C-alpha cells in the first residue's frame, strides 16, 4: 500500500506540476509577445484634439511599431495629454527634435507616428516630453524636416493619400482649389497670348532668323527641335492627366464604395503629374512657370491636415 500511495502521489505531482509549467510558459510567451519583460521608456506629448486616441494605440516610426499609447487624458489647459511607451531598442530614436504626429490609415485605428530625431540631437531621457504636430514648435520642426529631407516614394504617396483623403472629404478643400489652379495653368498654356505661346512665338522667330545659317547653331537648333517636340508631348500628356483627374473627382463624388481604387488611381495620377511638372521645371524653356508650380503642388504634397479626419465621413455625401 505504501508503495502504491507514493506512486499516486508522484503521478499527481507530475500532473499538477506540468499544468503550472504550461501556464507559466504560456504567460511568458504572451509576455514576450507583449514585451512585458523589456524595459519600457515613457514619453508624453500633447495634442489639440483627441478623436480616436486611446490607450493601446500603436506608436510607430515609419510604420514599424515601436511602442504603444499608455494613457490619454484631458489636461487643465484642455489639451489632450498622451503618455506612451517606447521599447528599449527604439528609445534612442526619440531625440530632442522628434515630433509626434497622428496618422489615420485608411483601414484600422489611428497610429501615433513619431518623426525620429536627427542624429546630431541628444536622445531624450525616459519620461521626457516631446513636441506634437499641433504645437508651434512641432510645426516648425516638421517644416524644417520637410525642407531638409527629400521624402521617399512611400512617404510621398502616403502624404498624398492623406492629403487627398482630407481634401476629398471637403468639397471646398485643397483639391478643388488645386484643380482650379491646374485648369488655370492649362488655360494659360493653351491661350494664345499666354507666355508659353509667346515663348513659342519667340522660338519661332529665333529659328526663322537662324534657319538660313549653318554650323554649330544649326546643330543646336536641331537639338532644340527635339527638346521642343519633347515639351509638346509632355504638354499633351499633362492635358490627358488633368482630364483624368477631372473625371476621377467626378467618379469619387458619385461612387463612394470604389473609393479605394479611385484614390489609388488618383494617387498615381498625382504622382505622375508631380513628376511631369518636375521635368518641366528642369527644362529651361518652361522655367518661367516654375514659380507657379509651387502654388499647384505644395498644398497637395505638404498639406497639413486641419482637424480630425473621420473615416468615410465626407465620402457618403
Amino acid at each position, binding site marked *: 500500500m505504501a508503495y502504491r500511495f507514493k506512486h499516486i502521489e508522484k*503521478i499527481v505531482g507530475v500532473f499538477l506540476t506540468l499544468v503550472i509549467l504550461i501556464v507559466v510558459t504560456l504567460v511568458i510567451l504572451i509576455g514576450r509577445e507583449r514585451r512585458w519583460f523589456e524595459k519600457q521608456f515613457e514619453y508624453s506629448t500633447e495634442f489639440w484634439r483627441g478623436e480616436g486616441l486611446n490607450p493601446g494605440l500603436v506608436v510607430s516610426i515609419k510604420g514599424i511599431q515601436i511602442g504603444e499609447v499608455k494613457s490619454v487624458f484631458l489636461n487643465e489647459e484642455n489639451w489632450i495629454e498622451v503618455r506612451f511607451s517606447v521599447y528599449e531598442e527604439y528609445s534612442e530614436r526619440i531625440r530632442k527634435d522628434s515630433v509626434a504626429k497622428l496618422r489615420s490609415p485608411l483601414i484600422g485605428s489611428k497610429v501615433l507616428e513619431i518623426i525620429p530625431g536627427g542624429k546630431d540631437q541628444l536622445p531624450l531621457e525616459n519620461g521626457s516630453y516631446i513636441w506634437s504636430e499641433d504645437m508651434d514648435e512641432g510645426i516648425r520642426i516638421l517644416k524644417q524636416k520637410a525642407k531638409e529631407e527629400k521624402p521617399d516614394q512611400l512617404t510621398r504617396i502616403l502624404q498624398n493619400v492623406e492629403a487627398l483623403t482630407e481634401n476629398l472629404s471637403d468639397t471646398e478643400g485643397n483639391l478643388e482649389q488645386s484643380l482650379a489652379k491646374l485648369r488655370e495653368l492649362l488655360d494659360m498654356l493653351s491661350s494664345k497670348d499666354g507666355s508659353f505661346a509667346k515663348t513659342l512665338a519667340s522660338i519661332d522667330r529665333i529659328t526663322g532668323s537662324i534657319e538660313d545659317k549653318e554650323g554649330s547653331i544649326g546643330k543646336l537648333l536641331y537639338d532644340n527641335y527635339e527638346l521642343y517636340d519633347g515639351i509638346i508631348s509632355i504638354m499633351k500628356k499633362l492635358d490627358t492627366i488633368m482630364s483624368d483627374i477631372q473625371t476621377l473627382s467626378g467618379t469619387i463624388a458619385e461612387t463612394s464604395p470604389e473609393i479605394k481604387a479611385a484614390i489609388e488611381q488618383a494617387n498615381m495620377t498625382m504622382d505622375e503629374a508631380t513628376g511631369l511638372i518636375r521635368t518641366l521645371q528642369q527644362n529651361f524653356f518652361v522655367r518661367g512657370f516654375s514659380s507657379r508650380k509651387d502654388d499647384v503642388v505644395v498644398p497637395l504634397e505638404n498639406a497639413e491636415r486641419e482637424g480630425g479626419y473621420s473615416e468615410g465621413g465626407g465620402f457618403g455625401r
Partner: protein
Amino acid sequence: MAGYFGTVGQWVLAKAAGLLDFCAYNALVLRSLFHKRRGGLESSLSVLFKQVFFTGVQALPVIALVALALGAISIVQSLTQLPKFGGEAFIGKILITVIVRELGPILTGFIVIGRSGTAITTEIGNMVVQHEIEALEAMGIDPVRYLVIPRVFGVTASLVALNIYFDIFALVGGFLVSKTVLLTSFTIFLREIVSSMVVADIAVSLLKGFIFGILVSVICTFRGFSVKLSSTEVPQMASKAVVGSITALFIADGIITFIYYF
C-alpha cells in the same frame, strides 16, 4: 383546481426547502474550510491526492480524445472557411475564444461531471447507507472536512488542470491532426495563436475551471449526503447530481461571460 395549485405549491416549497438545505450545506463547507484545526491534514491530503488522481489523471485520455477532435475540427474549419471572406486575421482569436474560453471549460466540466461527479455522489451515498459517515462522526472525524473539502479541492484542481490540458491538446494536438489536411506550417500557426492570446484568455479559462470545479464538487457531495437510508436512493441522487451540476455549469458560464463582456 385547488389540487393542482396545491401540487405546484408543494413542488415550489420542496424546491425552496432543497435550496435552503443546499445553502446550509454550503455554509457548513465554508465553515469547515476556514476552521483551523491541527492534524487531520495528512488524511485529508491523501484523499485529495486520490481525488486528483481519479478526477484529473485518469480523465486525461478522454479529455485528450475530445480535445483532439474538437481542436482538429475547429482548426480545419477556421483555416479553410475564414480566408474565404477575408477573416484570416481572426483565426487565432476565434480559435482561442472557442477552445480556450468557451468549449474547453464546458466540455471538461461535462467530462468531470460524468466521470467523477457521479462517482462522488455514489461513493458518499453508499457511505451513508453503510453507516460509514456515522462511523466517521463517531470517531470525531468531520465528514465535511474529511470527505468534502479534499474533494472540492481535488475536483477543482483537476478541473483547472484538465482545462489547461484540454487547451494544449486541442490547439497543438488538434493542429497536428489537421496537418494531414492542411499545409499551414506549425510555427506560423503557433505564433498566430500566441500573438492573439491574451492573459485574460488564460485567466478566464482558469477561473472557469475553478468555479466549475467548486460547483460540481459541492453539488455532487451534497447529493451524496442527501441519501438517507436505502441504497435505491443512490442512483437517483447521482442523476440529480448530474442534472444539477450541468445546469449550474451553464448558468455559471453565462454569468462569467456576461460579467467579462459587461
